[in-house]
């Protein structure tokens, strides 16, 4: 397959299919995330990159022999390893009988929310989730360090002019999008708050929220979107999300309990757990949404810059 566009679309389809695998195997939260992230955001980011780098792969001679060797070796190693595994779906496998039963049986009493995945994610293993937020934050900072460019105000006017002239062309999609965006944002908030009871939570909500903003940016231009959400504002939100999450831990520490022990947040342990989970989900949501927007903005900015350069080059080429 030499057409990268097709490659990326197929990857998106693969992600979506694996998301339906996850639903079939009872992992609704994971499926939700995979659909939003794998099929949504990463496909989108890859498409943006393809518009920058060009969509066709050069025909190069690659050396498949070594790769095949490595792959066959690793694969047979794994197949060899599978022979002693417990069979698929068996209920008394060690994985189901050691740590997990406590989550299933006690989490209602100890944490008090019906969605066990959320209670493990946000309370029993809250520190992993904190790490996850920091990973996303790191990625945002890393992308910014790699791609951010200085502002050039005089060119902005030019691009707005182009945007206006293209308004006619995108009329249908713009109007439909304007109708949709409020619903998407509302849905993001629903997912944010509903994470305790069904699939959802801060991470998915953040991605959906970011998707709405990204949709807006794609249709109305980066400059317009920048007017609503500027770089330093997003940075502030991203940092605030991580800080909010960390502060929940620090407050419980100041109350005399261990880090992330939500029981200490309120007089009643279960109420404390509720409060803690609510707050950290907000932290996750803020950071994820703002980092996703930040990453997309930086990508789009590079693309715009490159196109401007090409335009200038073309004009110079013509005058020569």
């Amino acid at each position, binding site marked *: 397959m030499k057409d990268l566009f097709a*490659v990326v679309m197929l*990857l998106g389809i693969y992600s979506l299919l694996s998301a339906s*695998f*996850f639903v079939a*195997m*009872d*992992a*609704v*939260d*994971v499926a939700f*995330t995979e659909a939003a*992230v*794998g099929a949504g*955001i*990463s496909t989108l980011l*890859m498409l943006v*990159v393809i518009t*920058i*780098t*060009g969509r066709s*792969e*050069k025909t*190069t001679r*690659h050396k*498949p022999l*070594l*790769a095949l060797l490595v*792959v*066959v070796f690793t*694969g047979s190693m*794994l*197949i060899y390893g*599978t022979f002693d*595994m417990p*069979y*698929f*779906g*068996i209920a008394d496998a060690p*994985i*189901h009988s050691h740590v*997990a039963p406590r*989550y*299933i049986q006690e*989490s*209602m009493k100890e944490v008090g929310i*019906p*969605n*066990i*995945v959320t209670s*493990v994610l946000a309370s029993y293993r809250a520190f992993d989730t904190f790490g*996850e937020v920091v*990973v996303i934050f790191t*990625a945002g900072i*890393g*992308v910014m360090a*790699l*791609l951010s460019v200085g502002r050039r105000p005089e060119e902005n006017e030019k691009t707005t002019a182009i945007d206006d002239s293209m308004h006619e062309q995108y009329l249908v999609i713009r109007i439909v999008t304007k109708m949709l965006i409020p619903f998407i944002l509302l849905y993001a908030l629903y997912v944010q708050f509903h994470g305790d009871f069904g*699939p959802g939570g801060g*991470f998915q909500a953040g991605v959906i929220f970011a998707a709405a903003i990204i949709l807006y940016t794609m249709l109305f231009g980066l400059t317009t979107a920048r007017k609503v959400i500027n770089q330093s504002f997003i940075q502030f939100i991203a940092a605030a999300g991580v800080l909010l999450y960390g502060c929940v831990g620090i407050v419980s520490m100041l109350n005399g309990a261990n880090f992330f022990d939500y029981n200490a947040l309120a007089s009643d342990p279960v109420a404390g757990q509720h409060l803690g989970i609510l707050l950290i989900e907000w932290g996750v949501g803020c950071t994820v949404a703002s980092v996703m927007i930040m990453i997309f903005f930086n990508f789009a900015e*590079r693309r715009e810059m490159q196109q401007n350069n090409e335009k200038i080059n073309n004009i110079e080429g013509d005058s020569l």
Partner: protein
Amino acid sequence: MIIGLYNDWVVVVLMMIGLYIVIAHGNLIKKIVGLAIFQTSVFILYISMAKVEGGSAPILAEGIKQFSNPLPHVLILTAIVVGVATTALGLALVIRINEAYGSIEEEDIQHLDNQTQDETELQATEGEQS
């Protein structure tokens, strides 16, 4: 009875397809696509080990006794996020590489690198001689 392991074999095949793309292909975007496939297949491995026959999604509700294991779900939620973070950073690097080298093919880049290496060495030896 060995057929009870079919889920693992499917996953292994998927993983190896991803790994093969990463190693064998020269296009940088394709490498990242390969990584994504590789990682997603590992996610399927985890989720498939969490499934319990007859169990339902781990959300407590009345009348349901058997649940699938929630812990791998939590782990994979985290891993998905890590995956997208890596993808984003990798793509950012691809953009920069494209700007710096004018190409996103491994061969071209290595070729250009060898050239610059030769040039610097040439300059160094010239400096020594003069």
